[in-house]
């Protein structure tokens, strides 16, 4: 019974996405599309001040407005012990402020009403008497003696310092610097940015007073972890909490934390016995939820005259906002920043980091990034480029000279990571070839002679994703493992349930392809379910590019478990010993007699109708994957720009991005991820900025002030690939969702700096607006009176 040789569209196929069918018809179900009988609407009153004591809150007028069902204040929440909640960094955060407000936009009260318009009307009727206090808006000020203590709610907190953290070997690094012919340093600021997914955050909380069942639809990238946090915070029995992350309109790290709005809506539903919906407005999203970066960085390189890198120092100051809500593995206070040695073979490195409270929204989410690797990659790639100028070397040559060599993998870095695999030279050379690097350098020379500014920026990043091995990686004690559950039905169709949650990455397609690869069931016959905690195995969720490295591996492993049992059944059907059965995609055959075969579908049917004696019925399994190591995607990005010397305006001429993310499950989806990441990197480099005035007012609280790239200014991208499989991942994949956001900002900035390097310009802090570039030109040698 030989099968037709239809090709199984497993790993490596650009399968069209299964999820698209509902989205192109407008039939997705995002949280705001959830409508329940009797549902109420909640709106949140936010603080206009960055730092102020609350003298009193008068809700009587708001409460009297027809249509208002309840006004919730911190005092009411406190009665239920819910005025404060834990953050994912094991700090505490006010749910609704009781004593003080600590950032502009902080949650002060909430109105629950029959109609969302009425809820908004009522907000204006709440009277809050504030006593403004000095706002601390920079971490430098925060750490000065005599600065107002922001977290006076915490008994043992006497200043604004949160943590001190070190990595690497100080002594060895000092020695390296002592031996250096040359040191190069860079002081730079990675400003606050906001992931701004197109859909804001929100939830619908439905607590059934009769059954005690709590069902909460929530824009969450990590529904299981949130369920556990809710159980711990609200004291609800975990089996009665069901978190459903429906279709999510983009996440990028913004939808990892627990926000006060979720907690208040849930409490309101509990108190009122009716479903409560809360959907953020855009300005609320921008001023109060998960910021990223806000990192002051100083880097120093120790070099030999010939360009050999000897050592690296980095010192960092993180602005964490008013509550320490970094999304980080517990033990790592600045995440994976110590990957800062990047793609280079450094004998020694040392990283020192401090974090401070300020009167700003809590920050530090990994915006399309694996826990601060973006900041690290930016620092090292900027430093290397600058070092090349000081050495009089071509920046590409300096990189090629110092890259970790292919035969050094697995490579132990100076800060203790073990890089799984890589071939940095190959990726860099491919990118240079695609761009026509050498010709462009010549053109740059000619352009300079004509007074034109042309620049080439390079970034050869190493990413680190897939957190992580249980020995070192947990969030609030929960090990960062993820699960997959696979069930094959009698007709040979399958359901795969995942602990990770898609926000556009295409899991419903790519994970089905992994099953297809391992079992030979076509991807369209594998339904992928995710996001509903009642119906999926436990796991920590989708961020830090962990879906493929962790849950993808779990999917491969569970498929293999199922295959083992299927082999037994096949042996029974073929009437041979198990050892004599061989598997190839989709069929089991007798070794040496490939015509004697059973398809996976035959076997699935037999698993319910004709299984061997002593075997359980059914064909299913579950696997929780504990990754043995992280994965280390890498690549080289090259950007060519033209800068207008009179206006500082810069335009991108070419972007060449060569990525190596190991085995590509679905090349079409991988490229889509890269396009998106490159665009965000471009936005961060050029326009995205959330800043604050001296009073702590957030500038950039809407899409008119917080500029995001549109199709018009977004560059065209030219992609290239190399494939260096991860040796420890079951299918050799490494993860890709964030590589481009991690690697590209430095490439864009380096390109502009490169255009101005001969004028002595070495740094412009992002975003590189025309005015900042113009200023840098003015202050450079070109801006001297004669010029």
């Amino acid at each position: 019974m030989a099968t037709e040789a239809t090709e199984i569209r497993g790993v490596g196929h650009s399968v069209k996405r299964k999820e698209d069918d509902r989205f192109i018809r407008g039939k997705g179900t995002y949280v705001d599309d959830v409508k329940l009988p009797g549902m109420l609407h909640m709106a949140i009153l936010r603080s206009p001040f960055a730092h102020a004591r609350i003298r009193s809150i008068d809700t009587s007028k708001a409460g009297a407005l027809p249509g208002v069902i309840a006004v919730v204040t911190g005092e009411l929440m406190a009665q239920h012990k819910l005025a404060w909640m834990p953050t994912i960094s094991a700090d505490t955060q006010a749910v609704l402020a009781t004593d003080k407000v600590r950032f502009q936009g902080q949650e002060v009260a909430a109105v629950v009403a029959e109609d969302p318009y009425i809820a908004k009307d009522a907000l204006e009727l709440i009277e809050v008497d504030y006593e403004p206090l000095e706002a601390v808006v920079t971490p430098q000020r925060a750490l000065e003696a005599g600065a107002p203590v922001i977290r006076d709610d915490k008994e043992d907190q006497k200043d604004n310092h949160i943590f001190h953290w070190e990595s690497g070997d100080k002594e060895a690094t000092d020695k390296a610097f002592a031996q250096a012919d040359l040191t190069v340093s860079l002081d730079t600021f990675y400003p606050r940015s906001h992931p701004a997914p197109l859909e804001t955050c929100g939830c619908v909380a439905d607590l059934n007073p009769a059954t005690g069942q709590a069902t909460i639809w929530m824009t969450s990238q990590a529904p299981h972890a949130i369920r556990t946090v809710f159980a711990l915070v609200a004291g609800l029995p975990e089996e009665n909490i069901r978190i459903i992350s429906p279709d999510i309109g983009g996440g990028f790290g913004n939808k990892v934390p627990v926000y006060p709005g979720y907690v208040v809506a849930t409490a309101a539903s509990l108190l009122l016995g009716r479903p409560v919906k809360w959907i953020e407005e855009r300005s609320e999203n921008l001023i109060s939820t998960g910021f990223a970066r806000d990192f002051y960085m100083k880097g120093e390189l120790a070099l030999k005259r010939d360009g050999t890198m000897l050592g690296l120092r980095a010192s960092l100051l993180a602005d964490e906002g008013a509550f320490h809500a970094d999304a980080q593995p517990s033990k790592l206070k600045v995440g994976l920043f110590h990957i800062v040695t990047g793609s280079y073979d450094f004998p020694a490195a040392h990283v020192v980091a401090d974090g401070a409270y300020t009167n700003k929204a809590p920050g530090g989410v990994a915006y399309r990034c694996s826990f601060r690797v973006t900041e690290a990659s930016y620092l090292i790639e900027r430093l290397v480029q600058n070092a090349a100028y000081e050495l009089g070397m071509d920046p590409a040559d300096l990189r090629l000279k110092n890259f970790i060599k292919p035969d050094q993998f697995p490579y132990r870095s100076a800060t203790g990571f073990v890089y799984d695999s890589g071939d940095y030279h190959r990726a860099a050379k491919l990118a240079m070839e695609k761009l026509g690097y050498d010709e462009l350098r010549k053109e740059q020379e000619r352009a300079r002679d004509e007074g034109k500014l042309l620049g080439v920026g390079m970034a050869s990043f190493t990413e680190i994703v897939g957190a992580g091995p249980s020995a070192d990686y947990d969030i609030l004690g929960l090990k960062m493992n993820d699960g997959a559950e696979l069930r094959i039905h009698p007709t040979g169709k399958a359901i795969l349930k995942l602990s990770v949650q898609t926000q556009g990455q295409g899991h419903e397609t790519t994970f089905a392809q992994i099953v297809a690869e391992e079992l030979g069931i076509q991807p369209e016959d594998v339904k992928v379910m995710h996001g509903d905690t009642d119906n999926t195995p436990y796991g920590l969720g989708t961020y830090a590019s962990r879906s493929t490295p962790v849950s993808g591996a779990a999917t491969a492993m569970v498929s293999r478990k199922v295959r083992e049992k299927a082999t037994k059944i096949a042996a029974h059907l073929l009437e041979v010993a198990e050892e004599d059965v061989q598997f190839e995609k989709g069929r089991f055959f007798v070794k040496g007699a490939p015509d004697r075969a059973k398809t996976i579908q035959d076997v699935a049917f037999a698993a319910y109708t004709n299984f061997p004696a002593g075997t359980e019925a059914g064909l299913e399994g579950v696997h929780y994957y504990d990754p043995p190591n992280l994965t280390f995607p890498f690549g080289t990005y090259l950007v060519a720009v033209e800068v207008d010397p009179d206006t500082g305006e810069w335009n991108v001429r070419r972007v060449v991005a060569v990525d190596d993310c190991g085995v590509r499950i679905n090349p079409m989806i991988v490229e889509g991820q890269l396009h998106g990441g490159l665009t965000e990197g471009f936005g961060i480099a050029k326009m995205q900025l959330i800043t604050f005035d001296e009073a702590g007012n957030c500038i950039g609280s809407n899409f008119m002030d917080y500029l995001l790239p549109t199709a018009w200014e977004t560059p065209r991208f030219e992609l290239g690939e190399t494939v260096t499989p991860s040796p420890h991942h079951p299918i050799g994949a490494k993860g890709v969702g964030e590589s481009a956001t991690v690697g590209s900002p430095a490439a864009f900035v380096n390109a502009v700096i490169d255009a101005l390097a001969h004028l002595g310009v070495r740094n412009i802090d992002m975003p590189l607006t025309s005015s900042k570039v113009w200023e840098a030109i003015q202050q450079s040698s070109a801006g001297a009176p004669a010029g």
Partner: protein
Amino acid sequence: MQITVTVNGTERTADVEPRLLLVHLIREVFGLTGTHVGCDTTNCGACTVRLDGTPVKSCTLFGVQADGRSVTTVEGLATNGQLHPIQAAFKEEHGLQCGFCTPGMMLTGAALLEKTTDPTEDDVRWAISGNLCRCTGYMNIVKAIQAAGRAMQDEKAPEPAGAAS
């Protein structure tokens, strides 16, 4: 206020507050949730619908302004169960990821293609510059709109030679 709006070809009446935004009329009153809200400041285009054929941002109009007019939403793109070429092209070219911007993008794109089925890349980028996408980097959206244009040419001109290409 009593209003009558033709929504995706069907006449609907509703009694609404004058301040009700068109996007809420569509989503909450008519129950068509394919139209999304991404910003509240007319910047993102997630709420784009066509009002008498013109793409508009429905978060910036009141429902009552649609009285006596016709509105097309993403749910009205397909006809007789047949996908609009732009819907097929968005899937084919991977022009969407999270799908949140997609309805607005497709409606803006469809309006462009009614003017020309052969837009240049710049034409497309300019036309959709009022629609933000945070996921795709626009590359494949542009491709999808151009591919849909080609499909529409093929559909329109089956026999005359040389119409395609």
